[in-house]
Each structure stands twice: as C-alpha cells, then as structure tokens.
C-alpha cells in the first residue's frame, strides 16, 4: 500500500490503482472537512436561523408553499421556491413593477369568515403582522386567524430583550397540549419590548436600518385571498373523517379551535399553518 510496506513495487498497476484509491479517499475526506468548516463558519456568522428556514421551507407540503400571486388570481397554480422571500424574487418584482403604489391600499379592515384583518399593518405568511410606530420601532403580533386557532396557550416563550431576530427566523414559541410551535419573525431587528399581558402577545422590534424592506409581507387585497385559502385548508383538516365534508351554515369562528376539536392532529395542522416542517 505504501512504498515502505513489504510487498510494494513501483509498477504501473500499483501506481494507477493506489493513485485512484488515495484520490477517492482524499476527495471523501476533503468534502466532509469542507462541510464541517462551512458549518462552523455559518454558526459563527449567525446563519443558523436562515439555514433552518431554508431547510424547513423545502420540507413543507406544496399546498403550503403556494405563491402569493395565486391569491390575487395572477397565477392559477404556482409554488414558491424562494422561502416566501419576495424581496429577491424576480417574478414578484416583475408583477409588481407596473402597479401604482396605492393600487392595493384599503383602509377598512377586511373580514373573512369572521376573522378581522386590520389594514394598517402588513402580514407575514406565518400569521404574524407588523405595524410601524411613531417611535421608529415596529410592533409584531399574531393575526386574528392565529389567535382564534390557538386560543389560550399553555405556555409561551418570548425572546429576551436585546435578542436579534431575523426575517423567517424564530421570534417566539408557544406550547399548547402536546404541540409546541414557533412563530416566524416578519422582519430583522432587535427586540426592544415584549408583552404577554392583556393586550395580547407582541414584540417591539427596532430595525437596524432606518428604511426596512417589506416586499415579502402581504398587504391590501391579497390578504383576503390568502386568508380565504388558509381557512379552506384549515377546514379541510378539521373535517370529521366519519362524516366527511360539511357545509358551514353561518356563525363566527370559535375562539379556541384546538379546544373545540381536541381529537384532530394539531401537531400537523399547526406545523402547516405556522410553517414548521
């Protein structure tokens, strides 16, 4: 195997065969080493949250990864491959470049199936919202759909003040029954205040830059289309398999879906709704 080992000879056969073998071993070893070094660097540079989202997103069902432009009818069928980050999506840029800035402006809240979505804020696909405040900070909270779904959680874990959150990174977590789910942050910045009191759960985030890019967040008319699809997906999951599909006869959504349908597979449903694979 080596020149100093008994039986080795400098023949073409030996050189070619062992040369290929050692090359293969070197390639395998080097590739593993590169992976380890890259992983170490990614951890040092705090890319773990972005990588987690990239990984989770690819594992989400296609029905969850629907493009926002499907909600507005611009596409019949389109799956997002960009981690819901429209800021770097060429198709989104192309579709929105001809729209006037005010074309989507609606001032009155949208009501879909009894869920109220105020239009003074922007919505993230993971059911959080962002609202700018006069102080320059941004308030981040749970939308009405998520609030109805969870009801009163058994436990909630808010980030410590000073924590840096990233778009599509974990913002805070909640536990309900046997399920634990994290909420995704809709923007980058530092957590400067939190609340889990009577005003509901929210964070206040101070962005690192004065102007923030919110192109990835839902707004205006598309919110209604999105919420409609979300509710349809939820309904499909809540169907009693023994009865099958039923036709709703009006009314308003219950406050705590989990408590109202205790025997459903909430682990899966919450994962689908809050985008956790």
């Amino acid at each position, binding site marked *: *195997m080596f020149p100093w*080992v*008994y*039986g080795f000879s400098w*023949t073409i*056969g*030996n050189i070619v*065969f*062992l040369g290929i*073998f050692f090359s*293969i*071993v070197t*390639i*395998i070893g080097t*590739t*593993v080493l*590169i*992976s*380890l070094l*890259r*992983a170490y660097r*990614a*951890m040092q540079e705090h*890319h*773990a*949250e972005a*990588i*987690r989202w*990239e*990984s989770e997103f690819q*594992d989400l*069902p*296609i*029905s969850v990864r629907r493009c926002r432009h499907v909600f507005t009818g611009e596409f019949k069928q389109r799956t997002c491959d960009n981690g819901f980050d429209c800021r770097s999506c060429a198709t989104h840029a192309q579709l929105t470049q001809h729209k006037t800035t005010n074309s989507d402006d609606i001032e009155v809240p949208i009501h879909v199936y009894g869920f109220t979505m105020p239009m003074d804020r922007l919505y993230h696909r993971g059911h959080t919202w962002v609202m700018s405040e006069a102080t320059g900070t941004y308030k981040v909270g749970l939308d009405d759909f998520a609030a109805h779904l969870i009801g009163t959680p058994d436990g909630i874990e808010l980030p410590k003040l000073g924590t840096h959150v990233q778009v599509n990174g974990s913002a805070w977590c909640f536990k309900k029954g*046997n399920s634990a789910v994290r909420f995704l942050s809709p923007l980058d910045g530092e957590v400067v205040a939190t609340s889990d009191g009577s005003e509901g759960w929210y964070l206040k985030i101070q962005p690192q830059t004065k102007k923030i890019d919110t192109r990835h967040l839902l707004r205006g008319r598309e919110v209604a289309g999105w919420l409609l699809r979300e509710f349809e997906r939820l309904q499909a*999951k809540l169907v009693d398999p023994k009865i099958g599909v039923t036709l709703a006869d009006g009314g308003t959504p219950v406050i705590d879906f989990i408590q109202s349908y205790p025997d459903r*597979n909430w*682990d*899966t449903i919450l*994962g*689908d709704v809050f985008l*956790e*694979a």
Partner: protein
Amino acid sequence: MDKQYIARGVSRMSIKKFGLWMLPWSIMLILGAYAVYLCLIKGLNQTNMDNRFAFGLWIYLDLTVIALGAGAFFTGFLLYILKKKELKAVINSAVVIGFICYSGAVGVLMVDVGQPLRAWFTFWHPNVHSMLTEVTFCITCYLLVLAIEYVPVILKNRKIKQFSSMLVFEHELHKLIIVFAAVGTFLSFFHQGSLGGLYGVLIGRPFAFRPALGIWPTTFFLFIISAAAAGPCFILLTTALASKLSHKHLVTKEVYQMLGKISGSILIFYVLLKTIDTLIWINSTSPSLGFSAASFYKFSGFGTWIMFTEIVLCGLIPALILLNKKMRMHFAWLITAASLACVGIVINRFVMTIQTLALPTLPFDQFLSYVPSWQEVATFLAVLAYGMLVYSLSFRYLTLFPQERELESL
C-alpha cells in the same frame, strides 16, 4: 411516547405495536449473532464450505445484496447528476437500503474471511492484479460514502434538527452531496463490474469464463448493467412493500412509473447484451475450451430452464412490461415486472456463484452439491433481520419519503 422523534405530519403505529414488529427480527438477529460467534470462535468448520466449494451462501448473499443495493448509487446518479428531480421522493430510502445492503455484505465478508481482525491485510498488502482487491477497496470506500450520505437523513430527525449545529452541518453536507453521488457512481461502476469480472477471468471454469473486452471480461460490463437495471426495481419494490405494510401512500404513482421505466430501459439493453454474450459463449468460448455448452446443463436441478428463467422469464418479459406504458401504469403489472427483474438478478448471481463452483471441470471431478450449514443460514438471515431493523427504525424516525406528508394530507 416517542412522538417528539417522529416527523411532523406523518403518523406511525404505537410504540407497543412497533416493539412487537421488531421482536421477531431482533430474535433472528440474536440467533445470527450466535452463529457468527461460533464461526469466529470455532472456525469456518462451522460451515459446509471447503477448499473445493469456497464460495457459498455468504458470497452469493454478498453478490445479490450488492446488486440489489445498486439502487442507491443509481438513484443518486439520476437525481444529482442527471437531475431527475422526481427521484427526490425515494432518494433517502434508496440511501438507507444501499447502506443496509453494503454494510450487511461487508459484515458477512468479515465472518467469511474467518479472521476479521486481519481484514486490514487486504489494504496493507494489496494484490493489484486481483479483481477482489478492487472489489474490497471499492466496497469499503462506497460503504463510507453511503454512511456519509446516511448522516444528513439522520440529522433531519425532528429531535436532532432542533440542535442548530446539527441542522447546519446537515445543510452544508447536503449541499456537497453531488460529490458523494459522483464518487459513489464511480466506485459502484468498478466494484459491480469487478464482481462480475472475477468470474469472467476464471479460465479454469469454462462455465463462467468469458472473452475480454479491453482488459475486462464481458461479465464485468454485464454485472454493472444488470445491477443498474435491478437497483431501481428493488427501490420500487421496497417502497411498495413499506407502503403496503404501513397502509400509507409514500410516493406518487408517477415516481413508481418512472423507476419502472428507467429499469425497463436498462433491462432490455442488458437482455440484449446478455443474449449476445450467451450466444458467443455457446458457439465459441465454451467449445474453444473443450466443453460443449450443453454439457453444463445435464446435471439434475441445473438444466437449461435456469438460463431460460434468467434471461427470458425474468429478463425479457419484465423489460417488455416495464417499457409498455399501459402495463406500467397498472400497479399490479409494475410490481410483477419489478419482482421478476429482481428475481432474474438473484438467479444470475446464483448461477455465477453456486452453479459455477458446482460444475465439474476436470476429468476426475464430480458434480458437487452444497447445502449450507445452519450457521451459514442463520448468518444469512441475520443480515435480513438487520436490514429490517435498520429500515424499520429509519422509516419510523426519519423522513425516508418526503412526499408522505403531502400525500397523507390529501
């Protein structure tokens, strides 16, 4: 109890039922471990092999599982090199099956060597003129590659991926998986070929000896192509079996059909080459060595029916079924054809290993029959049990079929 370890969106049987499922396989594995212990402590006299019949059930098992495990390298090659994205649905399962097959084969080889503590001799003092040396080097390297490819699948376990460092390493390793796919293809090409080649060079065994193309006998190429044809069929069958046993749709029909089509295309090519090779052997190679081909088939149990079954019944017919779109779309036909194709490869490896050694070649030789000892059978079954245990655990706790969550929600 173990729900937190099971992927979100999929359901698995209760831990109690799972324990009951694992019990018989565990017993089989323990029995096999005892047989291995006997072979290693008391020696290879525990087997029914001897100097005349040195390749027995174990080598046959090695050749067979390595051929069936070819689905791992070939699926990886199609997905990562040829960009057949549809096969992403089965790649994790293919890697696990490949790992089981190769680690099982290497495990049995260690017992077969008789002194596994000296296994490193083959690396330290390689005989570069032996095809077996190439096989040993390639299989060892490829097992390492399969183990590395298995790592990202394990690291994506629901519990393990909560550790950021694990997830990040998985992500970075997966980004370079194309390198391992390419290395795996290169290694598989040579060890599958060399496994065939080592029979083809046996000039003292005219039943197996074949003329050379370049520096390799034709069996070198036939083994590569047959393994590439059988591999996707075995992936198809194992997926269908897992689906049947778990009562779940694991992949879409299109994935099954694609595996069938790929397999059919290679299988028909293989049958053509195998037929040409066999005709040359009957009419030229064998007579030139002083044997009529018919003389090899006059022994009871080893008649020409084996050749017919291998090439026509389990080669040509499944290839035609798999290439016919209408029949391929019929699941029962697809499974039948895939099963036949796998049986064909199993017969081929049997013929090359057992029949080759059983046939007499010298005037004073007699036809030898060989029946494996219970220790050999128990070791053989232990590999099966090991495979079932590893695959069952992987199926329960890892995401072997990424489409399952989507299909379960429909």
